[in-house]
C-alpha cells in the first residue's frame, strides 16, 4: 500500500491549508492563491506523483453541517497543478463504500485514463487505489470530477491547472481559480426523485394567473415559459470556491495589478452569469484554450465550461465578483479587494427571464441575425491592455471564409419523429451563436457571445469535414426524460466515429432548455463563422431551438462519452458512447 500522504505531495496540496491553520482557519486548498513563479520556473516543483483520497467527510457549508464526498478532505477537491510536457501520475484511493472515479475534464489523454466507469475502465472499487498516468500535452484551466452516479453533486470536483511550456500571449500579476458550484443539503437522489414526480418541483418562479392570457400559447403547447432551470435556489446554495456568498471568498490585489481569474463552472445543474461591477473583463481563454482577447462586461458560463479573464482594478477598493444563476434564483459571490474583510455592494438579482417563442423556434423574424456571420471587429476595440494585439481580426485572411460552412439561416425543423421521449418540437431551428442567451438580451452591456470566440492560431487541420452526424437533443419534461434522438442511453448506446476523419457534428436542440454538450477525448471546433480560427471547446452550450455544428478531428482511439453535462439530464439518459472505428472499406 502506498502512503497516500507522501510528504512532498502532502505539502503541495496543503500548503495553503497549513498557512491558514497557522493564522486563522482551516480552509479548502482550492481557495488559496496558487503556487507561484518559482513553480513555473523550476520544473522539479511539479509533483511526479499526486495522491488523492476520496471519502465521505463531515463538512460545513454556510455554517450548516453536511456530509460531502471529499478529495483529500476538502470540497472542492484540491487544486492539481501540472506542467505541460510532464507525465501525470495520480494515485486515487477510494475510501467510500461505493465505486468512484475521477474524470479529467477537457484533458486530451489515452481513453483508458479518461476515468469514466463503463466506458474507459471498470471504475474504482471501495478500498482500491487506481493510478492514472498520462502525458500532459496541453495547458490551461481545466477541472476534474467524479463520473460515478451523482457524486459530483456532493462535492467531488476540483480545479486542474496546467502551466504552459511556452509563455502565454497575455500577462498578469495574480492568478486565482474561481470555481462555481451548486450545493444541496438534500440527497441528490431525492432531488432526482422529486424531478421525476413533478418536473417543476423546484421552480418557485412560475407565472401566475396574472399572465394567464399572455401564456395561452405556452399552455396550448403544455410548456412552461419559466422553465429556465430544473433545480434552483429552492434547494441550492451557490458556492464560489466552496464558500457561500456570506462567507465572501476574497482575492487580494494591489491597485493596477492585472488579475487573472480562472472561472470554472463545476455546478451540477446551474448556468451562471458572471460580472464584476466596475470592471471590464478581458476573456483570454475559453475551455483552457487561448482565444483572441475579447473585453466584455459579463459572460454566461455553462455547466462545465471554463473562462479565463483578466481584470485590472485600479482603485483601492473592493469589487464584487457576482455570479448570478441563469434563472435568477440565487447567486454565488466573492470579492476582489486590496485587503481581507472588504466588500462592495452586491447587485440585486435581476428579474427571472421568460422563454420567448424563439425558444420554440417560432420566431420568423431574422432581423437579429445579421451581425454575427462576419468577424467581430469591435471586440478588440474595448481592449485596454496595451500588450494585446489590437489587430487580430484585421490580420485574418478573409478568403478563408469561403471554406467555412457556417450558416446562420433558420431552417424548418422537419425531423420530429422522436417518439414519446420528445415532447416539444420547435418549428424552426437556427444558429443562435450571436445571442448572449436568455435573460441577457437587453442588458445594454457587452456580453460574451459564442461568435466572439476565435482561436488565437489557425486550427492545424483545415480539411473540410467529410461526414456529418446530426444529433438531436430531445426531452420530455412531463416525465423528466432526456435523451438524444428520442432514445436514452440504455436504448441506444453507441455512435461511431471513423479514425482519421474530420467529422462535422451537428446538434439540433428540440427542447426548450439549454444543454451543455461535452465530448470527451477530442476537441470540438465550434463552427461559429471564425473561419480557420474556430475556437476549440470541450463543452458547447446548445440553446433551445438552436442548430449548431462543431468539427471534430478524430485522431484518437478507444471509447469516449458524449453527453449533456447537466448532471440529472445525463443520469436519466442524455448520454452516448462514441466508439472510434476504422473507416469501412468502400465496396467496389
Amino acid at each position: 500500500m502506498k502512503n497516500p500522504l507522501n510528504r512532498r505531495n502532502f505539502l503541495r496540496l496543503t500548503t495553503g491549508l497549513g498557512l491558514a491553520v497557522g493564522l486563522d482557519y482551516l480552509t479548502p486548498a482550492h481557495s488559496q492563491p496558487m503556487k507561484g513563479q518559482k513553480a513555473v520556473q523550476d520544473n522539479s516543483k511539479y509533483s511526479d506523483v499526486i495522491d488523492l483520497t476520496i471519502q465521505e467527510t463531515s463538512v460545513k457549508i454556510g455554517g450548516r453541517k453536511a456530509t460531502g464526498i471529499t478529495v483529500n478532505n476538502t470540497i472542492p477537491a484540491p487544486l492539481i497543478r501540472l506542467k505541460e510536457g510532464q507525465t501525470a501520475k495520480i494515485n486515487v484511493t477510494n475510501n467510500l463504500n461505493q465505486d468512484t472515479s475521477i474524470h479529467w475534464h477537457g484533458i486530451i489523454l489515452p481513453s483508458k485514463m479518461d476515468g469514466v466507469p463503463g466506458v474507459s475502465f471498470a471504475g474504482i472499487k471501495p478500498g482500491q487505489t487506481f493510478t492514472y498516468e498520462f502525458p500532459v500535452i496541453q495547458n490551461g484551466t481545466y477541472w476534474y470530477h467524479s463520473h460515478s452516479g451523482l457524486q459530483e453533486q456532493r462535492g467531488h470536483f476540483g480545479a486542474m491547472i496546467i502551466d504552459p511550456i511556452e509563455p502565454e500571449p497575455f500577462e498578469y500579476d495574480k492568478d486565482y481559480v474561481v470555481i462555481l458550484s451548486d450545493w444541496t443539503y438534500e440527497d441528490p437522489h431525492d432531488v432526482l426523485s422529486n424531478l421525476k414526480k413533478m418536473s417543476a418541483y423546484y421552480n418557485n418562479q412560475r407565472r401566475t394567473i396574472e399572465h394567464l392570457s399572455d401564456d395561452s400559447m405556452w399552455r396550448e403547447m403544455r410548456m412552461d415559459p419559466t422553465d429556465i432551470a430544473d433545480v434552483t435556489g429552492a434547494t441550492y446554495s451557490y458556492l464560489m470556491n466552496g464558500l457561500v456568498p456570506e462567507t465572501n471568498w476574497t482575492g487580494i490585489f494591489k491597485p493596477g495589478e492585472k488579475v487573472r481569474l480562472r472561472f470554472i463552472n463545476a455546478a451540477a445543474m446551474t448556468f451562471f452569469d458572471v460580472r464584476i461591477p466596475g470592471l471590464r473583463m478581458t476573456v483570454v481563454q475559453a475551455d483552457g484554450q487561448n482565444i483572441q482577447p475579447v473585453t466584455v462586461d459579463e459572460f454566461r458560463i455553462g455547466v462545465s465550461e471554463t473562462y479565463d479573464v483578466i481584470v485590472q482594478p485600479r482603485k483601492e477598493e473592493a469589487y464584487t465578483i457576482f455570479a448570478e444563476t441563469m434563472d435568477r434564483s440565487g447567486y454565488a459571490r466573492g470579492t476582489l479587494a486590496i485587503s481581507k474583510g472588504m466588500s462592495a455592494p452586491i447587485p440585486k438579482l435581476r428579474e427571472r427571464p421568460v422563454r420567448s417563442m424563439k425558444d420554440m423556434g417560432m420566431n420568423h423574424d431574422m432581423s437579429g441575425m445579421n451581425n454575427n456571420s462576419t468577424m467581430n471587429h469591435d471586440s478588440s476595440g474595448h481592449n485596454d491592455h496595451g500588450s494585446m494585439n489590437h489587430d487580430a481580426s484585421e490580420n485574418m485572411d478573409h478568403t478563408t471564409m469561403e471554406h467555412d460552412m457556417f450558416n446562420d439561416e433558420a431552417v424548418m425543423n422537419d425531423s420530429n419523429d422522436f417518439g414519446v421521449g420528445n415532447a416539444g418540437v420547435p418549428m424552426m431551428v437556427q444558429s443562435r451563436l450571436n445571442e448572449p442567451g436568455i435573460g441577457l438580451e437587453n442588458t445594454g452591456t457587452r456580453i460574451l457571445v459564442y461568435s466572439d470566440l476565435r482561436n488565437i492560431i489557425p486550427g492545424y487541420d483545415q480539411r473540410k469535414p467529410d461526414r456529418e452526424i446530426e444529433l438531436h437533443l430531445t426531452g420530455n419534461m412531463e416525465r423528466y426524460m432526456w435523451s438524444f434522438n428520442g432514445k436514452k442511453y440504455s436504448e441506444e448506446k453507441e455512435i461511431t466515429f471513423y479514425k482519421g476523419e474530420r467529422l462535422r457534428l451537428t446538434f439540433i436542440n428540440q427542447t426548450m432548455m439549454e444543454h451543455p454538450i461535452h465530448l470527451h477525448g477530442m476537441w470540438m471546433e465550434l463552427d461559429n463563422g471564425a473561419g480557420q480560427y474556430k475556437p476549440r471547446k470541450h463543452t458547447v452550450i446548445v440553446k433551445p431551438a438552436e442548430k449548431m455544428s462543431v468539427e471534430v478531428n478524430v485522431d484518437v482511439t478507444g471509447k469516449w462519452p458524449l453527453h449533456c453535462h447537466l448532471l440529472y439530464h445525463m443520469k436519466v439518459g442524455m448520454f452516448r458512447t462514441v466508439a472510434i472505428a476504422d473507416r469501412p472499406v468502400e465496396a467496389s
Partner: protein
Amino acid sequence: MNSKIIIYSSFLTGFLSLINIPIVQSETTQHLEIFKLKETITNNNQDIFTQDFDDDFVANENFNQEFAQQEYEVPDTNEENEENWPSPIEDDEIFWLLLVDRLEYRASDGKDLFYWDVQGWVGGDYERIWLKTEGEVAFAEKESGDAEIQLLYGYLIAPFWDLQVGLRYDREYGPDDDKGRVFAVIGVEGLAPNLFEVDTALFISENGDISARLEVEQELLVTQKLILQPRFEINLAAQEVENFGIGSGVNDIEFGLRLRYEINRNHAPYLGINWIRLVGRTSDFSREEGESVDNFSVVGGIRLLF
C-alpha cells in the same frame, strides 16, 4: 514558508480529520506568490507559436495527438474484463410517487362525510404500475360509504399520454346493504393542451355492464404558494344497473374548486367547495332511496405528496 508551521498544520489537519471535526470553510488569508509570465503577445499572433521550443517538446498538435495515442504506452492498471464493467449511467431506475390528492371533510346539509382520492405509481419512464383509490364514509345516523380501488398497468403511448389497463374493485356498504363488484379498466391519463389534466376510463363490470368516467382538472397559480384547482367529473353508463342505483346515460356531474396553500410541495392544506348533481334515472333511483340528488358541500382537507 516556515517548515514548523507546515508540520504543525499538517498534524492539526490530520488530527482534525481523524476525530472527524467538520472542516470550517471560511474566508482565508490570501497571500499570493506572484505567478507572472513576462512574455507578451507580439504583433503577429502566430509568431509565438512558431518560435523555437524546448528540444523535447514540439507544439505541433498533430504530433501531440500521436504522442498521446500511440507512442505513449498506457499502463495496464485495469485488467478486469470489459464485459464486467458497470454501465456508465443507470437510466433504467425505478421511481415512485404517492399523491394524496384529496383527503377532506365534506360538510353539507345534514350529511357530512369524509372523502379521499389517492393516486400512486411505481416504475420507469415508459411502464408504470398505478394504484388509484377513492371513496367516502358518511357519518349520518348509521355509518355508510363506498370505496373503489384500481390497480393498473400504464404504458406511455404519446409524450403526454399514458394508456392504462387493469382492474377496479368497488365496495358499497351501509345499514342495509353490503355489496361489491369487479371491473376491467381501460383508460388514458395525461396532460391535454392548455394544461388540463385528464383522466378518463372505460369500465366493464363482471356482469358485462359498461360505464365510463371523465375527470378534468387544472392548476391555476394565484401566487407561487396559493393554487386554485378547478375540477370536473362526469360518469356515464351504457346500461341500467338498478342494484347499484345506476341509470343509463349520464349518471352524475361534479364540479369542485379548491384553493390550496403549499407550505411546501409535499404538504398543502386546502379549502374549497364541491357540487354533485345526479341526473336521469340515477337521480330517480336516489330519490326512491330518499337521498338528495343535488349535493353542495364545503370542503377542507390536505394534499400530500410523497
